[in-house]
């Protein structure tokens, strides 16, 4: 039950994009088409689950026992960068179709603050390993969902007559604001 609450909280109530503002860059950049939004979301979810495992081990098995928590930021970012690189290489070797679908998104993920934010949050909240994995999965699902909804709205938005100064990023931000407003409805759930 507790795990389910963590999942729901990360995916919907405290959605990474719409209420914690993590991963805004890909949210604005890759939400043009629903197909690329889903690919990006899947790539992010995959890396998030891996990151939650690796950074949990790094923090609670290496950094805390040796009392070198101050190295948290550089070590997390290096581990995430090499992890993404590694995942990219593995996918390229194992599955070409998957690589073609996710390939171009993987390098972008390194500087996605949602990934580092996830690692920092789980060390801050002192989750256990299983809780961390569920948290990562929930965050990934929430990210994918936000990206998918946004892409769906933007596809419709292409056909509407938006005032010229608001075309592009401004109207996207305003749409995101309304979407965040809608997600606030979940706030009392947990």
């Amino acid at each position: 039950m507790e795990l389910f609450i963590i999942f729901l909280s990360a995916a919907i109530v405290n959605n990474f994009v719409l209420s914690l503002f993590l991963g805004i860059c890909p949210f604005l950049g890759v939400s043009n088409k629903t197909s690329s939004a889903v690919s990006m979301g899947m790539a992010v979810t995959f890396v998030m689950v891996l990151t939650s495992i690796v950074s949990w081990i790094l923090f609670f098995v290496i950094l805390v026992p040796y009392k070198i928590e101050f190295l948290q930021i550089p070590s997390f970012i290096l581990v995430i960068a090499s992890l993404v690189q590694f995942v990219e290489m593995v996918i390229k070797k194992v599955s070409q179709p998957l690589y073609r679908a996710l390939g171009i998104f993987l390098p972008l993920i390194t500087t996605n603050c949602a990934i580092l934010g996830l690692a920092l949050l789980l060390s801050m909240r002192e989750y256990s390993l299983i809780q961390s994995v569920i948290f990562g999965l929930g965050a990934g699902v929430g990210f994918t969902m936000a990206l998918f909804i946004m892409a769906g709205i933007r596809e419709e938005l292409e056909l509407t007559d938006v005032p010229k100064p608001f075309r592009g990023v401004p109207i996207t931000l305003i749409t995101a604001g309304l979407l965040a407003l809608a997600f606030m409805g979940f706030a009392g759930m947990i």
Partner: protein
Amino acid sequence: MKEKKSLGYEYLKGLWEVNPVFKQVLGMCPALAVTVSVMNGLAMALATTFVLVFSSLLISFIRKLIPNQVRIAAFIVIIATFVTIADLVMKAKFPELSKALGPFVPLIVVNCIILGRAEAFASKNSPFRSLIDALGNGTGFLIALVVMGGIREIIGSRTLLGYQVLPNGFEPWLIMILPAGAFLTLGLLMGLANFYVDRKNRIEKQELVQKYRKTPDSVEIKGQEA
């Protein structure tokens, strides 16, 4: 290579012309997340500027020593070092502020402004020019965050820097200090900025047309504007 621009230009361009938030759409996460009040925005912008200035300076000093293939990794390590310094100093000196900013101080490390300036400017220019460029971009970021924080704080909680500025009769708009308000404020501000730039460009173009048309038949210009 392009010609050398004046140092004043390198500083001023960051304020408006290539303002990181309004024009380049970089560093959006902190711009949206921490601007609940002016104080938070200010603190975030100062921390970011600190990291930006020192990492640009250091990267520019050692730019000839870094092999091209590993430059991104090297940049990230340098940036992460300065972020750690900023994070620890803030935790020690301003614990409440550090708590209010939450994970966003450590997240400066993945702020695209810093890596962007390192890659686009500091790795190609002299330390002094990089310093000026970093200061300009940092100030631009500061302006954007303070403006956003100001708007959200005044409307959302009636105060500015903690002092009440609007009368009690004004019902605060709760939405402004919630996540949705951040998106709406930034969207509207960006729209306004675009509107202003569009209008300025149009007026400039009109003036140019008028200058080159010395003939008295200025009636046609009106028709061209539409």
